[in-house]
């Protein structure tokens, strides 16, 4: 059986599930074979019906936060939005943690096009090793495809700009066709690029070599990650650098964060929205939301692992309903846990990091996030 892996925003469509799981990275394997969530009330195993009934009781009449959502299909995200409207809840995903919205407006390039034609890939504030383990081998650096038949040996150039020597940076440093630029400040690097374009010297002298490599091909891209989204202050300088070099931008995001953000911007004009007050919430106000809410529905996320402690500490004091396919740290603190199957089994649509809509085939009839959200909306 072939499935699309929904463990990260690569959405690999070549995974084979049989007696073993073939081609999936460790993240993908864990999604399918990790320790499964169970239906529980305060840690005691119960039937699904009892868990849903208890979940309804918990959220009834409370100030509610709906959180997570980045790993859901677009269809489930739509229902989560509907649930938030119905229960006058506030809806928040991980995109509030950084200034990612600006970056989603930048011109992207399809990963398949980059695989066939792309030359320079700049991993800026991102470490695919952690977030998108197969990105280098499937699309950016190693494939011998289209115009890039000599692969990484001659037809690709890898740049890693990061504050630390990450695993990806080690590969760049070891390779003849790669370079690691250690940065302390993202703005300084953007300014260095702009200065080098004008023929002036900036703080980072290596950028001149990168610019020379960029001139060799038409398709080059920056693959930006959380480090860039959080660290860059002068976004206009970054945009100017991309425009002057005709570089495309691919944000490395959580699985379907792009789908969530697009849905929210289309429907309510903001990625964070409080339906009780009927207004968009700014990033700095999210901490107040976490303080004020009484109950939280966490869907397909593990905020105790992914959020800064100032947020997770507040969550620990709330009544939590955790809906997930895998056991998580958050579920240990939950009033109610609901077990669902992973979204790569229940099917739907997701938007890949490059903006391409990917159809996830339904391969199993198990209980899904969509089923849970529908039951709350009945």
């Amino acid at each position, binding site marked *: 059986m072939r499935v699309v892996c929904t463990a990260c925003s690569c959405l690999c469509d070549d995974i084979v599930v049989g007696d*073993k799981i073939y081609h999936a990275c460790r993240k993908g394997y864990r999604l399918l074979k990790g320790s499964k969530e169970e239906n529980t009330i305060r840690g005691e195993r119960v039937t699904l019906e009892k868990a849903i009934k208890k979940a309804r009781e918990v959220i009834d009449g409370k100030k509610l936060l709906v959180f997570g959502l980045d790993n859901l299909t677009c269809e489930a995200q739509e229902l989560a939005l509907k649930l938030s409207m119905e229960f006058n809840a506030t809806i928040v995903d991980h995109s509030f943690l950084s200034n990612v919205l600006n970056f989603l407006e930048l011109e992207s390039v399809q990963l398949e096009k980059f695989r066939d034609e792309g030359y320079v890939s700049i991993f800026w504030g991102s470490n695919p090793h952690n977030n998108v383990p197969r990105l280098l081998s499937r699309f950016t650096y190693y*494939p011998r495809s289209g115009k890039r038949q000599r692969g990484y040996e001659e037809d690709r150039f890898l740049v890693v700009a990061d504050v630390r020597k990450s695993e990806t940076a080690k590969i760049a440093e070891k390779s003849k066709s790669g370079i690691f630029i250690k940065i302390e400040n993202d703005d300084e690097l953007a300014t260095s690029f702009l200065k080098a374009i004008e023929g002036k010297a900036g703080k980072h002298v290596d950028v001149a070599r990168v610019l020379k490599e960029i001139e060799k091909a038409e398709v080059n891209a920056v693959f930006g990650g959380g480090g860039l989204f959080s660290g860059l202050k002068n976004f206009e300088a970054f945009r100017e650098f991309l425009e002057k070099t005709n570089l495309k931008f691919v944000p490395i995001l959580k699985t379907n964060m792009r789908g969530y953000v697009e849905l929210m911007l289309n429907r309510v004009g903001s990625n964070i929205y409080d339906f009780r007050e009927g207004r968009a919430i700014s990033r700095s106000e999210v901490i107040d939301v976490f303080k004020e809410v009484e109950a939280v529905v966490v869907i397909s996320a593990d905020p105790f692992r992914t959020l800064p402690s100032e947020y997770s500490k507040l969550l620990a004091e709330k009544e939590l309903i955790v809906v997930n396919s895998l056991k998580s740290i958050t579920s240990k603190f939950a009033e109610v846990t609901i077990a669902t199957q992973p979204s790569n089994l229940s099917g739907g649509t997701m938007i890949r990091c490059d903006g391409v809509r990917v159809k996830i085939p339904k391969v199993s009839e198990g209980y899904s996030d969509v089923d849970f959200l529908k039951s709350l909306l009945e």
Partner: protein
Amino acid sequence: MPSPMEIYKLLPKTNCGRCGEKTCMSFAFKLLSGEKKLKDCELLFDEKYSINRKKLEEMLAVVEKAKETGLVVNEDLCIGCANCVVSCPVHVEKDPYNAAVGRGIEMEEPILRIEDGVVKVINISLCRRYGKERTLCVVCRENCPTDAIAFVEEI
């Protein structure tokens, strides 16, 4: 992976030569390369070296797993990124429409394949380091971001 010095420290260090090597240090290198076995050192089987022998057995367990080409895969470090599978020149030649372009390898009996989230050695006989016309290819090791792949002679 242990170093020759770490192994040497646990040997009797008498340079008795009964193993066929002139020095214990030389024996340590040969243990690592798989050319010698612990049983070749008679002294190690004396009671007073029993603790050291046990430590050496644990240390060398990973070397025992090394394939004929000297390839050692530490699955605990592997994240299944498939850089090794896609960059392998043999895979590129024999599976040009899948592994070479970054997709999951489809050829039967490849050298390496990602199974259950980590790389597995399937058919080492295809490796360029194997056989009469072998070369000192280190492509898979060079492109592993986690140092999960090593070759015994380089250790």
